[in-house]
């Protein structure tokens, strides 16, 4: 969550609760509602690393609140994160390892593994279909996330088919 908070602070200084609200507003249902405690712990670490700094702002009838702002070092870290290409999909996943190793053990054959995994992926796809139909058209960020997940699943299924062809 470190870099997500840095990005929000690059827009404007904010206190912890404002960051929680900003995450919720920006992502809609695409991001699980962040835990306020986790936000404060993360801010504390960012402060220790010199990426953000905090100032106390006095409030009438309430304890002071800490408003955080980005340091020059924090901005550098954020820029590096944004500028770097993001790692591509990792296809040597758990299933790939099973597919390679299971036939050696005799526990399962590849055809059975592929068939089971295909039905599992379709079950997830079905969940995503439901999710998409339940998501408000105005929740654009969430819709993009769901559509992205669907396209990844389609690729995974195409790849399963490719694995199956290899059994011929």
């Amino acid at each position: 969550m470190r870099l997500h908070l840095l990005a929000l602070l690059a827009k404007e200084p904010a206190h912890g609760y404002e960051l929680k609200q900003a995450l919720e507003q920006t992502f809609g249902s695409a991001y699980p509602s962040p835990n306020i405690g986790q936000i404060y712990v993360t801010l504390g670490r960012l402060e220790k690393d010199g990426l953000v700094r905090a100032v106390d702002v006095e409030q009438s009838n309430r304890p002071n609140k800490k408003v955080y702002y980005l340091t020059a070092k924090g901005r550098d870290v954020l820029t590096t994160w944004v500028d770097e290409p993001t790692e591509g999909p990792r296809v040597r996943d758990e299933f790939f390892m099973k597919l390679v190793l299971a036939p050696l053990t005799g526990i399962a054959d590849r055809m059975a593994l592929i068939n089971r995994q295909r039905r599992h992926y379709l079950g997830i796809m079905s969940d995503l279909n439901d999710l998409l139909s339940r998501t408000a058209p105005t929740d654009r960020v969430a819709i993009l996330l769901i559509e992205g997940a669907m396209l990844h699943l389609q690729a995974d299924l195409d790849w399963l088919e490719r694995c199956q062809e290899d059994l011929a």
Partner: protein
Amino acid sequence: MNAVLKAVNLVKIYQDGAVPVPAVRGVDLQVEPGEFVAIMGPSGSGKSTLVHMLGGLDTRTSGEIWLDGKRADTLSESAWALLRRKKIGFVFQFFNLVTNMTVGDNVELPALLAGASPKVARERRESLLAALNLTDRADAAPAQLSGGEQQRVALARALANQPSLLLADEPTGNLDSRNTRDVLRLLSEVHKEGQTIIMVTHDARVASLADRLVSLFDGEIVDDGRIARRRTGTAGEVIDLR
């Protein structure tokens, strides 16, 4: 309850040249009323051949096909055609609409062919076009419609005779994502209303509407089981950051 469709040890061998090519090698399949079955598998695994045989569009080499408890494969070609008009709706990747007939007539024709009275066929046409948001396109020629609209018309046509069984072969094969969504919604609706469906598809979104997945490989069924649904929640909860 009687199975809508039953195939017993169904075999198709093509004999083009000197070498016989088996496309379907002994398929057993039973589909109950209201079931939605997706058929997947690599190209050349026999999916299309199988549904074409089930629909009587291709002859079987051996085996049995039962429709609504009646043996179909032993019928004469004309008797099979008659049964097909009554009991089966077909949707293909390339819509196969009659180009010199209006959209409305394309939908009405199968009901007439299946023996419905002109009045009933007209009513069926109008209710289907309305359900598919195509009422104002009824007098257009198919060529004036977008791909998604044409596929909706094809679906309306396939449902016009109130078939026991809807067979679909890559129904979203050449549609963009918005048009796929329309067809998806319709398939889901007719399935909820109890329509029995067997569908060949590569499209995981379409396949995931089904209750049951049959995987074909090299002309044989290698997997046949239910598609389990599990998770609910918001996008942020369902889709993990990795």
